[in-house]
């Protein structure tokens, strides 16, 4: 635990309820999805013809493709009730001074400390489906790093963009990837040149701001040979009365000898369907790590994946799920070993509270010819109440003999003995349970940058409030 339970309690009040900035936009699409909406999005974004064609093909696929017949229940999700595009009034800012006051307030409400707001010089914040503020730090520019909005990526680097866009996650991958491909808007475009090591995490904050908007963010990241970087994405969202949808697609290419980590802290409000496809192609001797913390949403389906394509590639997925009353968080990870001497690790920690249900769903696949593969999967579930549930779906498919695969799974409850021990030292029952939970997720929290670790602990603490007694 980065900060002790008791000390943080008083800081939590302001995080208790979602808040909402006034809606400011110049164009808002009508509800529902059809060809006209897709054409309008592409037109407003002044896209090249190939992108419009791509969107339309994806739309066709989306409409034809049935809903997934596995996983959480999505029957309450009504695609006709969703607004697929909102264009904000503000244009993208170039410097901190130009950032609209309202958005600065947004950052403040998110609890980002003063000092860090300056640090935000290198941050892209998504506001109402589009990058409003974006300034690449001078240091990044000097290094030749590209960190811009996905729209600017398409405009400014058309060849690079087209070479990789939709290649890691084709729209035929799944129904929601198809939806995203049809209506995507907002997200980041990142390129790290060969051998460049970026010390500071590249950060983006996301926030849903208009009721019923599906956010369809799209991010494309190319980490060239021998480069190193860390991208962090965190989001908190206001509460709404009607269902919302967040369907993102994240595509990452980690080239030979490069190292990349992508961290998400997801805290959508509990009416949001969060259905995200994240995939990385990992080449020879490259390392890819997904750190994925899911706290919010009504339903989350998210399985970050690594395709280990070159000899010696390494993939790692650390996922954390915290499901409270009524939430279903179905997450985990996939690693596909396609080359010899590749290694992988999946560590999943899930906490289920009340009627919450946090499950692990994962796949380790070893293709024929991928010799000397080593993979280890650990999934630990912690149940807080009698009504809490956790399921584990650890799929393993192996076509090669010469492999070492380990799998460990555990389900535990917060034990009476632990709670009594902590109470005997003066902690209340709630503080005691919170401390056990915080300790359980500590190995994950430790992997996060400091400010996110603090934020995550706060969120967990908030979720635990009023949970006992």
């Amino acid at each position, binding site marked *: 635990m980065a900060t002790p339970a008791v000390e943080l309690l008083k800081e939590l009040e302001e995080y208790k309820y979602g808040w909402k900035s006034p809606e400011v936009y110049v164009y808002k699409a009508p509800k529902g999805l059809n060809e006209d909406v897709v054409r309008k999005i592409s037109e407003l974004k002044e896209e090249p013809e190939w992108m419009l064609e791509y969107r339309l093909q994806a739309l066709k696929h989306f409409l034809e493709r049935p809903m997934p017949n596995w996983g959480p229940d999505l029957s309450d999700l009504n695609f006709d009730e969703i607004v697929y595009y909102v264009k904000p009034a503000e244009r993208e800012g170039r410097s901190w001074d130009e950032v609209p006051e309202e958005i600065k307030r947004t950052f403040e409400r998110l609890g980002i400390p003063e000092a860090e707001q300056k640090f935000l010089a290198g941050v892209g914040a998504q506001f109402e489906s589009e990058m409003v503020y974006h300034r690449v730090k001078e240091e990044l520019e000097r290094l030749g790093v590209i960190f811009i909005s996905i729209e600017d990526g398409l405009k400014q680097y058309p060849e690079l963009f087209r070479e990789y866009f939709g290649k890691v996650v084709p729209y035929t991958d799944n129904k929601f990837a198809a939806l995203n491909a049809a209506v995507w808007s907002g997200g980041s475009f990142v390129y790290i040149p060969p051998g460049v090591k970026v010390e500071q995490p590249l950060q983006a904050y996301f926030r849903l701001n208009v009721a019923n908007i599906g956010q369809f963010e799209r991010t494309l990241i190319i980490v060239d040979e021998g480069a190193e970087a860390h991208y962090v994405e965190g989001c908190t969202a206001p509460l709404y009365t009607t269902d919302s949808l967040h369907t993102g697609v994240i595509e990452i290419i980690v080239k030979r000898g490069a190292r990349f980590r992508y961290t998400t802290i997801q805290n959508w409000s509990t009416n949001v369907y969060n259905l995200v496809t994240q995939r990385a192609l990992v080449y020879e001797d490259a390392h890819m790590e997904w750190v994925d913390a899911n706290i919010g949403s009504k339903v989350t389906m998210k399985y970050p994946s690594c395709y280990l394509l070159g000899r010696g590639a390494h993939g790692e997925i650390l996922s954390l799920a915290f499901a409270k009353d009524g939430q279903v968080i179905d997450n985990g990870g996939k690693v596909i070993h396609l080359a010899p001497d590749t290694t992988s690790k999946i560590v999943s920690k899930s906490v289920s509270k009340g009627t919450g249900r946090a499950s692990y769903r994962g796949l380790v696949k070893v293709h024929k010819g991928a010799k000397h593969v080593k993979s280890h999967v650990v999934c630990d579930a912690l149940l807080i109440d009698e009504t809490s549930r956790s399921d584990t779906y650890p799929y393993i498919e192996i076509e090669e003999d010469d492999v070492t695969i380990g799998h460990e799974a555990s389900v535990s409850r917060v034990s009476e003995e*632990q709670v009594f021990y902590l109470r005997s*030292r003066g902690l209340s029952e709630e503080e005691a349970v919170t401390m056990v939970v915080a300790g359980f997720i500590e190995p994950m929290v430790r992997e996060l940058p400091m400010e996110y670790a603090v934020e995550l602990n706060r969120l967990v603490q908030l979720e635990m409030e009023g949970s006992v007694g």
Partner: protein
Amino acid sequence: MAETLDIRNLHVRTEEREILKGVNLTLRQGEVHALMGPNGAGKSTLAYVLMGHPGYEVTEGEVIFKGQNILELEPEERAHLGLFLAFQYPVAVPGVTIANFLRAALNAKRQAQGLEEISILEFRKLLMDKMRLLKMDPAFAGRYVNDGFSGGEKKKAEILQLAVLEPEFAVLDETDSGLDIDALRIVADGINALRGPERGFLVITHYKRILDYVQPDYVHVMVDGRIVASGGPELADELEAKGYENLLATVRG
């Protein structure tokens, strides 16, 4: 005036059977009492019940401390009031460091007493002082509570908690078991350093050895849920020489 912890006619049972069958014992601040007795006599049960373990049912009796029957209080309220139990089998809390845990515990107690929270710096200093007293490596504070600790480390960690929380009454349940000779010495020195007019101890043990270091004022023997003999330190010597069987025979006549 010295506070007392007054155990009166305490009867305790689990679902299956009665374990404590009318325990009477009065501890005063400033005194050290030793509680001995064969395995299964009910010593740990007494310790747990004093602290408020939810797994036991008190069917009769009361425990008066600071003018109230503490059996009606929650465990944390008893801790705030000044009670402490060093567990015979301390529980692991993976992922929570000793430092964070103890700071939270100390602040919870201070808050209940209407005191200001202790600052991180002050707490650090306090913790380091206490660790030095117990000859503990400062790195120990960063380890997860009882997680993967050796038997001896667990016992030392209990005494460290005692030292930081400074209770008025401390029950030490076999804190001497599993300690090597040097560790026993250190723990005993620690207890002696914490001994004083404002603190009372109930030291549960099987061995006279610790009582050579921590001289008790009184020794009690519990058998089958009752205190069957009480006396001065010489009772421990007698026990050591004769064993429980003979002593029992003497007592029962």
